């Protein structure tokens, strides 16, 4: 009986250790990544690559740096006006993600702005909140 307890403890520990390990090494911003995959990746691609001239890329995108102060509201309200990303024209409605709260938007922003060759200064919660207050 004692043996069986040790056996199950061993199996349990192995599962726990391998699970946790996978989480810590894959991404420093797991919530941001998961939210991105659930809400954005269908259009912008799992790696931010976009889709031809229909959905703009987020990977290595100049638009993120040039429009830093607008990003929270773009996520919250979507956008409809024509834009230029990395020299390419895009014009297609992006739907609002009105179910996302400020913390979630914050995590998504820090994820996309520091993935796929984007290297931007991290957003603080304050910065995101003040952007959201000024959304049209």
């Amino acid at each position, binding site marked *: 009986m004692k043996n069986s307890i040790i056996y199950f403890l061993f199996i349990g520990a192995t599962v726990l250790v391998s699970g946790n390990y996978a989480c810590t090494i894959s991404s420093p911003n797991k919530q941001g990544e998961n939210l991105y995959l659930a809400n954005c990746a*269908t259009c912008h691609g799992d790696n931010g690559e976009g*889709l*031809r*001239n*229909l*959905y703009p890329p987020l990977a290595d995108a100049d638009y993120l740096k040039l429009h830093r102060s607008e990003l929270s509201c773009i996520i919250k309200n979507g956008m409809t006006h024509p834009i230029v990303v990395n020299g390419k024209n895009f014009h*297609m409605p992006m*739907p609002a993600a009105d179910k996302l709260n400020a913390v979630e938007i914050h995590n998504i922003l820090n994820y996309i702005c520091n993935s796929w060759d984007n290297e931007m200064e991290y957003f603080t919660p304050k910065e995101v909140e003040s952007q959201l207050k000024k959304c049209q």
Partner: protein
Amino acid sequence: MKYCFLFITALLFTFSCVDPDKVVYDENARLPILGERAFVNGDTVYHTAPDFNFINQDSINITPDLFANRPYIVDYFFTTCPTICPRVKAEEIRVFDHFEKNPTLGFLSVSIDAGKDKVYKLKDYADKLGVGTPRWHFVTGDEDHIYDIANDFFHIAQKDPDAPGGFDHDGRLILIDKNKNIRAFCDGTDPKAVDIFIKDVEKLLREK
């Protein structure tokens, strides 16, 4: 007790070792004819794709005549779909590019949003994806007609105000052969399923 450990260990191994990616694709097995069958006077009558009458992105009338004697792939979508369609389109483009050198293979993307997806919208969408006629037709038509025939195309399509974007539908790609029989389908959001689907299409194109 000892046997119990052995049993559990064996069980764990079995579950950890079955890798769905390793299932071997049978290159020689003929693609089945899918759908319900009827038996008439000793002959088997197979399910066929429905008749249809659509308008494509170039305002041209599209009927099954266009695909007479050649295979084609059908999906249901709409241009403002916020959920699965963008992924399906990315995968379908992969299929389209793969068969670039097979001009006989047609593509039919049926919009389920007849209200918003007017011809000029479909044209814009196709242009932005960089695909289009003569091989890929983005079509609209009479709304009731589109919903009525969805089932016979193995598709689910219905209006649903609670669904994101206002429509409920699936992301399947359906393969139809030159005799209008349905021969294969896959979940267009799953790249691995689409890889197998590409092999199915290759197999169909090799059929005499």
